[in-house]
């Protein structure tokens, strides 16, 4: 009975807690009823953090490996070699890269907000497949 009443909400729980307090401490059933709704909140936070870390790691590694030796990097190194001021070229290209990734992420979240999760997963999968094919194409066309 106490377990059933647990997910009603914080206000309901605090009410039962207040009601139970004047009673004797023999009513130990109240402790799990209070502890239960807290459990998912506590368990959710590290899991979400870990998943964010995984997302960060996958994104970083795949994009880093894909962009090594890509045309952007080649144009950056050409410009820095021609101008003899690599830091200015780096700052300029860094600003551009931050802007394009920010635009990409904002666009992605914006699109994801207007489609169903199923459609988002499908189209994201197709896009990643296309990227993979583009990379393979790069590998086989560059000798």
């Amino acid at each position, binding site marked *: 009975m106490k377990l059933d009443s647990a997910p009603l909400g914080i206000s309901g729980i605090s009410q039962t807690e207040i009601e139970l307090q004047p009673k004797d401490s023999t009513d130990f059933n109240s402790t799990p009823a209070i502890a239960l709704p807290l459990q998912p909140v506590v368990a959710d936070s590290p899991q979400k953090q870990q998943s964010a870390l995984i*997302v960060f790691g996958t*994104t970083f590694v795949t994009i880093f490996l894909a962009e090594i030796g890509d045309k952007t990097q080649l144009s*950056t190194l050409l410009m820095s070699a021609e101008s003899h001021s690599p830091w200015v070229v780096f700052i300029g290209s860094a600003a551009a890269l931050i802007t394009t*990734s920010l635009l990409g*992420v904002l*666009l992605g979240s914006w699109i994801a907000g207007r489609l169903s999760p199923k459609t988002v997963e499908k189209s994201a999968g197709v896009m990643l497949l296309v*990227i993979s094919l583009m990379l393979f194409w790069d*590998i086989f066309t560059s000798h």
Partner: protein
Amino acid sequence: MDWHLLGLSFITVFLSELGDKSQLAAIALSGRSNSPRAVFFGAAGALLLTSLLGALAGGAVAELLPTRLLKAIAAVGFAILAARLLLFNNEPSADSEQTP
């Protein structure tokens, strides 16, 4: 500070990256993930590192690193991510929102 060079490098890189694979990857990954911030930091960090390597090492990057092999690894990685989304979609993954 050479503002002309700064603007030139910004515009060159911006135009060459617009709609390129890393931006497409950022769109795809942020769309299916609950933490677009992590995708942004991952993508921006990776791009900054490649551009830092490009600016500092100059032409040595292509000779020092097996770029084709690295690209192949990245291609396989993207293919795995795509396959996970397209084929194993029924499994409730850790970062999918429609898990009951």
